[in-house]
């Protein structure tokens, strides 16, 4: 059941605005334009330098063997198999935990929560939580999940730590997406006798979903590159087996790279660069997926 008509979520404002009269531009405008251009060039050149650096260091190490070998003391034989699978499982669990919690919280705040001081306080804290450094979440997770709940240094603890980390981001992104669903849609649904739950499930969520997914995928790609909380909860470095359950020990790509970078041998540094290339490829494809999702949605609603 798709809504017959929905307002575009990302309204293209330029097409609606009146064309700007291009009169005489003051010199200050030109200066600002140049400054803005320099800013974007600077940001881009940093990214390009970074990409060039790790690709030139690590590209020659990329091979099928590198992806399917366990860590080894010989840099040439070492691979990222356990780290890659570990990162993948970690991501999977993080998605399963954070998506229903985050979207649920966003639905509550947008659709059900009364507008009072308590809600305002909640909203303020959410924004604050999104800015808390990741290592703090690691310390929290170490105490709660590893020690109190005795999950040990397992995949489950790692995923829950990452869930804590990205939950505020997911809630904020989901709220933004839900808020863009036009009010008229809800009113129409309610007027036809649908309950509030039916309205949310069949009207609001389907329209908001691409927006929610875009925000969530960006949050997940932040989580996949995180090292600090995983190091804090004590993720391991040498793991020569694949995780076989929630309570299994694990390692992850950023941790494997972190360890290789600190080794004295140059060959291990190349391995670290190659592991980073793999991580970047995963990350960029996740981001690309988020963009595709948005583009596809925009086309459909027009």
């Amino acid at each position, binding site marked *: 059941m798709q809504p017959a008509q929905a307002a575009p979520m990302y309204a293209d404002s330029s097409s609606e605005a009146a064309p700007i009269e291009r009169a005489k531009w003051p010199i200050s405008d030109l200066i600002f334009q140049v400054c803005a251009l320099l800013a974007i060039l600077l940001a881009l050149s940093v990214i390009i330098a970074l990409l060039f650096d790790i690709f030139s260091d690590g590209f020659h190490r990329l091979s099928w063997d590198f992806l399917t070998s366990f*860590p*080894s*003391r010989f840099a040439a034989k070492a691979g990222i198999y356990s780290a890659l699978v570990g990162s993948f*499982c970690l991501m*999977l*669990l993080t*998605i*399963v935990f954070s*998506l229903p919690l985050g979207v649920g919280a966003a639905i509550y705040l947008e659709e059900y929560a009364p507008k009072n001081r308590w809600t305002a306080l909640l909203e303020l804290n959410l924004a604050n939580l999104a800015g808390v450094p990741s290592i703090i979440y690691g310390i929290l997770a170490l105490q709660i999940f590893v020690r109190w709940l005795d999950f040990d*240094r397992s995949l489950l603890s790692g995923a829950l730590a990452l869930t804590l980390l990205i939950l505020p981001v997911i809630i904020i992104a989901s709220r933004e997406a839900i808020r863009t669903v036009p009010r008229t849609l809800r009113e129409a649904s309610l007027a036809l006798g649908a309950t509030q739950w039916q309205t949310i499930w069949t009207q609001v*969520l*389907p329209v908001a*979903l*691409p927006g929610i*997914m875009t925000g969530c995928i960006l949050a997940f790609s932040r989580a996949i590159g995180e090292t600090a909380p995983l190091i804090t909860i*004590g*993720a*391991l*470095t*040498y*793991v*020569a*087996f*694949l*995780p*076989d*359950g*929630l309570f299994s*020990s694990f390692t992850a790509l950023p941790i494997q790279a972190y*360890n290789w*970078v*600190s*080794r*004295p*041998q*140059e060959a291990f*540094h190349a391995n670290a660069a190659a592991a980073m290339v793999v991580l970047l490829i995963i990350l960029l494809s996740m981001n690309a997926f988020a963009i595709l999702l948005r583009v596809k*949605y925009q086309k459909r609603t027009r």
Partner: protein
Amino acid sequence: MRIRDIYAPFLLAVLVLPAWKTNVDAAVPENLSGTIKVDGSSTVYPITEAVAEEFGKIHGDVRVTVGISGTGGGFKKFCTGETDISDASRPIKPSEIETCSANKVDFIELPVAYDAISIVVNPKNTWVKSLTVADLKKMWEPEAQGKITKWNQIRSEWPNQPLRLFGPGIDSGTYDYFTEAIMGKEDASRGDYTSSEDDNTIVQGVANDVNALGFFGLAYYEENKGKLKMVPVDDGKGDNGAGPQMANAENVIEGIYQPLSRPLFVYVRKQAAERPEIKEFVQFYLKNTNTLSPEVGYVQLPDKVTELATNRFAERVTGSVYSGGHSQLATLEELYTKGS
């Protein structure tokens, strides 16, 4: 787009995940299985990794995991019984022994290799030919903070140029050992030096600054010989090789690179050593460490010391040989002959 469509694959994958087993049926002589948890020093890590890798080839069903929480961080987990074996780049401290005994954790202390702390300067540094322990103390002692800032304050014939010091962070076992060996007191040093937890950063620091001096494990020098110049160290004693000595394997084995040769250890929880897979792993460790340690950049122990360590483990002798107030600088052979 339906919510179910997006969510279903993930849910399915999670349901399948626990059932997903690695089917490695290697030929196992004794059919050992179980998990061995090792954590601790990142300096000792490469040796334990090498041992775990070789051990895994024989006992494929035993899962060895190795972490790098640092020597101190490793002991925190070890002394609460969270781990079975702790890697350490310095002997266990009295405060850590107390935590262990409060949690009824008995440990067996086993030396596994030597590392040499090398003193390095920039290759363009032409004036430093050697350093005495007294010189190093003058540079690094807490009293030097803010006062000793130029090379000519150490020896008057050296140039009037700034002295820039680089070293590992105060949490590292390397720092603990260096301060004990040079200042005679652990953790006593000036605070105004450039510190990094990553020894490669120290390498870069010294390689890019003609006025720099730094210290780190021998392996980091060996891998960066072209960028650094090693300074021989003179301990001022005649009985273990007169004059300044270079940090290298021969000098460490002969016992003449003093006082900056340091032993590396593993600590085994006595209760855990009852488990057959851990007993086998530790024996395997001691049997192979002298061939594996040099491969990863460390110096093997004299055979006599390995023999003493093997006996110590066989007899399950607990406690630290350093706890009776013995200096870290005594030779391992002396310490472990007395200790067992």
